[in-house]
C-alpha cells in the first residue's frame, strides 16, 4: 500500500481512470504541461498526451460548455475549476445544462462529466479563494455532489465519479490536500503519510457515491460533517471528552439518510458542521431532515456550526473558520439541552 497525500490520491484516480478508459479526458486552467496550481494533474499530459490532458483558456463557462459537448459525443471529461470560487461563470452550464440534459432529452443525450474544484478556506485565500459553494449545487436536481475528507476516500470517490453516468461536482477541501487539518492552525498539520487514511492502493478501487462513513463511534451526540470539518469535529470530540459519533457524509447528493437517522435515533442529539455560510446552507437541509425523521428521539434542538453569513475575510480567517473550540462549545450546548 502506498502513502499518498490527497493531491497524489486525486492524481492517481485520474491516472487510473485515464489508463482504463481512453474516453477520459482531463482539462482546465494550468492543468496541462504545468500540472495544475495544486499539482493534481502533474505528469498526466506527459503520460497520456496533449489531447487527453490539456490547458484550457481562462473561461469557466467554456470549460463546462465544451465538457458537456464532449460528454454528448461520448467522452468522459474530468475538468478542473481552479478554485470553487471561480465556478460562477460556469453556473449556467452546470445547473441548466449539465444537470438537465438527461432529463430534458429523456436519456437521448447524457452528461457524464466530473467537475473538480478545490473548496473551502484555511489557506489565507481571502474571499475569492476560500468559498464553500456546495449548497449551490445540492439545490440543483440532476447533480451529484461529493466532498472527500481524506486521500483514500478521495481516490475511490473520484474514480467512482468519473465512472458515474451523471454529472458529479467533486469538491476537494484544499486545506486537506497535505494533511488532516483539524482547525488547530497554530500547530503544524500531521502529514497524510502519518495518517492511516493516507494509505492508498496504487491501483483501481471505488467508493460508492451516496454512502457516508462513521469516523468515530459515540453515544452522546451525532456530529454530521464533511470535508475539512470532519477533522475539526474529531478534534472537538477528543478535546471536550464528549462521546460524539462523527459522521463523514462524503456525498451530499445523494445523501446517506439512513446512516444519519440511525445515529441520531441512537444519540438523541445532533450538531451539523460546515464551513460554508449558515443561511440556506446544507446544514439547514440536514437539520430539517433530522427533525422530520427523528423529532421524538431528540433531546435537544439541532445545532449548526458554520461560517458566518459574511464574505470569507482575509486577516480574520481564524475568527471566521468554525474551528474545534466553536464545535466544542456546540457539543457542550446540545449536551445541556
Amino acid at each position, binding site marked *: 500500500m502506498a502513502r499518498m497525500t490527497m493531491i497524489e490520491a486525486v492524481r492517481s484516480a485520474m491516472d487510473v481512470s485515464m489508463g482504463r478508459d481512453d474516453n477520459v*479526458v482531463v482539462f482546465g486552467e494550468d492543468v496541462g504541461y504545468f500540472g495544475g496550481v495544486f499539482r493534481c494533474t502533474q505528469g498526466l499530459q506527459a503520460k497520456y498526451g496533449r*489531447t*487527453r490532458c490539456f490547458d*484550457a*483558456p481562462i*473561461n469557466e*463557462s*467554456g470549460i463546462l*460548455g*465544451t*465538457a*458537456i*459537448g*464532449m460528454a*454528448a*459525443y*461520448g*467522452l468522459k471529461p474530468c475538468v478542473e475549476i481552479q478554485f470553487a470560487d471561480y465556478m460562477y*461563470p460556469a453556473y*449556467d*452550464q452546470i445547473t*441548466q*445544462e449539465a444537470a*438537465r*440534459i*438527461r*432529463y*430534458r*432529452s*429523456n*436519456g*437521448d*443525450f*447524457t452528461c457524464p462529466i466530473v467537475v473538480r474544484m478545490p473548496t473551502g478556506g484555511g489557506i489565507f485565500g481571502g474571499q475569492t479563494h476560500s468559498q464553500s459553494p456546495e449548497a449551490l449545487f445540492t439545490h440543483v*436536481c*440532476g447533480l*451529484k455532489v461529493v466532498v472527500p475528507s481524506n486521500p483514500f476516500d478521495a481516490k475511490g470517490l473520484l474514480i467512482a465519479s468519473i465512472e458515474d*453516468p*451523471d454529472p458529479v461536482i467533486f469538491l476537494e477541501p484544499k486545506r486537506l490536500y497535505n494533511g488532516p487539518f483539524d482547525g488547530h492552525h497554530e500547530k503544524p498539520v500531521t502529514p497524510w503519510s502519518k495518517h492511516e487514511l493516507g494509505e492508498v492502493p496504487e491501483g483501481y478501487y471505488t467508493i460508492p457515491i*451516496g454512502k457516508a462513513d462513521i469516523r468515530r463511534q459515540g453515544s452522546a451526540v451525532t456530529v454530521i460533517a464533511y470535508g475539512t470539518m470532519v477533522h475539526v469535529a474529531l478534534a472537538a470530540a477528543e478535546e471536550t471528552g464528549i462521546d460524539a459519533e462523527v459522521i463523514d457524509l462524503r456525498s451530499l*447528493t*445523494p*445523501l446517506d*439518510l439512513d446512516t444519519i437517522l440511525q445515529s441520531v435515533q441512537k444519540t438523541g442529539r445532533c450538531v451539523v458542521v460546515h464551513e460554508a455560510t449558515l443561511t440556506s446552507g446544507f446544514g439547514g437541509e440536514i437539520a430539517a431532515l433530522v427533525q422530520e425523521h427523528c423529532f421524538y428521539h431528540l433531546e435537544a434542538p439541532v445545532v449548526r456550526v458554520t461560517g458566518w453569513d459574511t464574505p470569507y475575510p482575509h486577516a480574520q480567517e481564524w475568527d471566521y473558520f468554525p474551528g474545534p473550540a466553536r464545535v466544542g462549545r456546540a457539543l457542550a450546548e446540545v449536551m445541556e439541552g
Partner: protein
Amino acid sequence: MSDRAPLSLHVPEPAVRPGGAPDFSNVKIAKAGSVPRPAVDVASEEMRDLAYSIIRVLNRDGEAVGPWAGALSDEEILTGLRDMMRLRAFDARMLMAQRQGKTSFYMQHLGEEAVSCAFRKALDKGDMNFPTYRQAGLLIADGYPMVEMMNQIFSNEADPLRGRQLPIMYSSKEHGFFTISGNLATQYVQAVGWAMASAIKGDTKIAAAWIGDGSTAESDFHSALVFASTYKAPVVLNIVNNQWAISTFQGIARGGSGTFAARGLGFGIPALRVDGNDYLAAYAVAKWATERARRNLGPTLIEYVTYRVGGHSTSDDPSAYRPKTESEAWPLGDPILRLKKHLIGRGVWSEERHAQAEAEILDEVIQAQKEAESHGTLHAGGKPSVRDIFEGVYAEMPAHIRRQRQKAGY
C-alpha cells in the same frame, strides 16, 4: 467642475418604429454572383471582405449566378424546395393548433426556412447540430417524422420527451439534433466541445453550432469562439441574423462591429456573410464551411442575413415594436418564392406542380397531425405519466426522489 463637454450615452435605435415607413436602405445588398469563392484552405485574413459583404447566388430573375452557383442538382434543389414548403406548412398548422389551445406555445420559421433546410443537406449522417429553437428545418430536411415533432409539441402520451420540455425543444441524437435548451447561447460552446471530442478521437464527424443575432451578445458566444479558435475545432459556427431578438433590433447586440460575421475575424476564424433567404447560397456556403471542418482546417463563422417575418413566438406581437409592413419591405425576399422561380426558370418546375406539391404537403402535415392528436394534446386525451416527472433526473433514481414520487401518489 470639469470644463470638458459632458459625456452622453449612445443607445442604438432601429431606423423605423411602428407608424413609420419601413426602410432597409442601410442594408447593403451585394449583387448576386459578385462575391468571390475562396479556396477552403485560405487564411482568414485573406478573405476578410467576405465578413462584410453578402454572398448571393439567385439574382432577381431567379438565375443562379457566380462562383457559388452550381453546387446542387435539379433533384436536390427540388428536394430543398419541398423541405422548405413542408416546414412552412408544418409551422402554419402548429400555429393554428396553438391558437386552438392544443399546446401552450409555438415558434415558427416564416421567412427563415432556407437556413436550416439548406444547412442540413451539407451535413452527413453522424454529424451533430447544437440548434436554437428556430432550426426545425434540420429535422424536416433529414426526414425526422413530423408526427414525432407534433407529439412533442402536444406533450402527449407519445411525446418522446415525456412531457418535460416546452413545445419545439426537440431532441434527436439519431438525426444529429442536440436537445434544445430554453436559455440562450449555452449550446454554442457545447458544439465546440463536441467537435473537439471528434478530433480527440480521430473521428471524421463534425459539429454545427447555432445562435441568433441577439444571443451573440452572451458570453458563451465569446467562449465558443475562443475555444474553437484555440483548438481549431471541426465546427461550423452559424449565426442566424433575422434582425430581431424578440423586440430588440439587431443593432443592440451588434454594436459597432459592422456585421456579426466580423466578430470571427479577431479570432482568426474565417467568416462569411450569406443571403439567408437564398437556398442555393446558404447551401453553398454551408458546404464550403463543412468541407473546411472535414479537412481539419478548423472552424468557420457564417452569418445568415434573413428576416423574422412572424413574431418571436406565439407570446409575441411584433406590431408593438416594428412597422407591420416591414417584412414586405425586406429586400431579400421570400426563400420559397425565390427558389420556386429559379426552378421554373430551370424548366423543372411549374406553377401547377407547385400548387400540387403544396396540396400534397398540406395533406401530409394534416395526416401527421391527426395521428399525433390521436395520442392526445396538451389539455385533452393521452398524457405522459406523473411518474415521468421523477424518472430520468439521474440514471438511477435516488432514494429521496423515489420518496417524493411515492408522496405524489405514484
